[in-house]
């Protein structure tokens, strides 16, 4: 919860900065899509998904270029490898640059970003019994940090006068080798597709942004 408050504090600071210099802030928005796929992944062992993400687009000096600032909070559990229950709680701060093609009704963009993540992992061994009863044993909690870099491209669509939906495809590489190398999820980057310190991940998401200044 402290992490959530921290993320909200940072988001509100960014928002207040944006209000004080409205000429620089192009848009603010939220990313609500991440929660949806996890709701349908119960058979894959995912439980209690909660993702809160905010995004701010700041106008850069050159036209059609923006600084991309986002922060988020993640809380999700997973039963993995038929032996470990893991709950990952954490947050991230992401900063990048975005290049827009135009300001038309459908606008294509691409960019890059780097993120720093922090996470706390609670886990337990849980081995299902067949002939004997199930076995569970607690494991030590641990916390750590990770970094990731990503490339993204997408399109945004005008939904209402100042409201735009941004469909975004992202591909990220990162490492969580500081303290929490075995977490199945790295906030800001995504699900680890293999159990190595270096991860490749990615996905599609949908952001909803409110345009403050044209």
């Amino acid at each position, binding site marked *: 919860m402290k992490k959530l408050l921290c993320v909200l504090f940072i988001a509100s600071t960014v928002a207040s900065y944006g209000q004080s210099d409205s000429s620089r802030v192009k848009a603010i928005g939220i990313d609500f899509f991440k929660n949806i796929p996890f709701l349908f992944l119960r058979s894959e062992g995912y439980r209690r998904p909660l993702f809160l993400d905010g995004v701010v687009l700041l106008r850069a000096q050159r036209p059609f270029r923006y600084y991309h600032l986002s922060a988020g909070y993640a809380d999700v559990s997973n039963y993995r*490898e*038929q*032996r470990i229950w893991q709950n990952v709680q954490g947050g991230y701060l992401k900063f990048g640059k975005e290049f827009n093609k135009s300001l038309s009704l459908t606008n294509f963009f691409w960019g890059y970003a780097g993120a720093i993540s922090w996470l706390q992992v609670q*886990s337990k061994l849980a081995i299902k*019994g*067949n002939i*004997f009863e199930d076995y569970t044993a607690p494991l*030590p909690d641990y916390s750590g940090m990770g970094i990731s870099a990503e490339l993204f491209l997408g399109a945004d669509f005008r939904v209402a006068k100042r409201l735009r939906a941004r469909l975004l495809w992202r591909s990220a590489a990162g490492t969580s080798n500081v303290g929490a190398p*075995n977490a199945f999820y790295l906030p800001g980057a995504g699900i680890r597709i293999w*159990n190595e310190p270096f991860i490749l991940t990615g996905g599609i998401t949908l952001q909803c942004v409110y345009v403050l200044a044209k």
Partner: protein
Amino acid sequence: MKRFYLVFMLWGSMSLYGCETCGVTSEPTLTVATTNGTPMNTTKVRAIGTTKEIVAQTAFSASTVLTLPINLNANSTTYILEQPTRQDTLTVFYKKRIYNVSTKCGYILDLIEPDSGPQIKSTFKAVDIRYDRYYNKVTGLSGGLGGEGIIILIKDL
């Protein structure tokens, strides 16, 4: 071409690095075998504390090797091996070890020999026990260590 070899070597190294079995990942089993290869003529195997009956994958009576489940909620498992004319008991002792083995596996569960006390008790005339790890890691092309689990050898019925 040099670049191709470099990529190939890197890929090969990563493939070998990935060959790791992360200890106990389902209800573990142990192996019971006779050293001279004669069938044990076992008609039924029971274990104390089970929630289900142990069902043989192949007929117990024809087997020279039995694969039996281990109770993780205790530090020993007792089996009762029924034969047409006799009944034998076999109690296996072990210790559960949970430790952080590698970046890939993280914390794992393995079964090792107990620190003190007996390792095995049996009504068979002569038995031997070997504790191999359930965790296994391939350490290059020559193979690796562990992965076979607990093995019981019945030397004399």
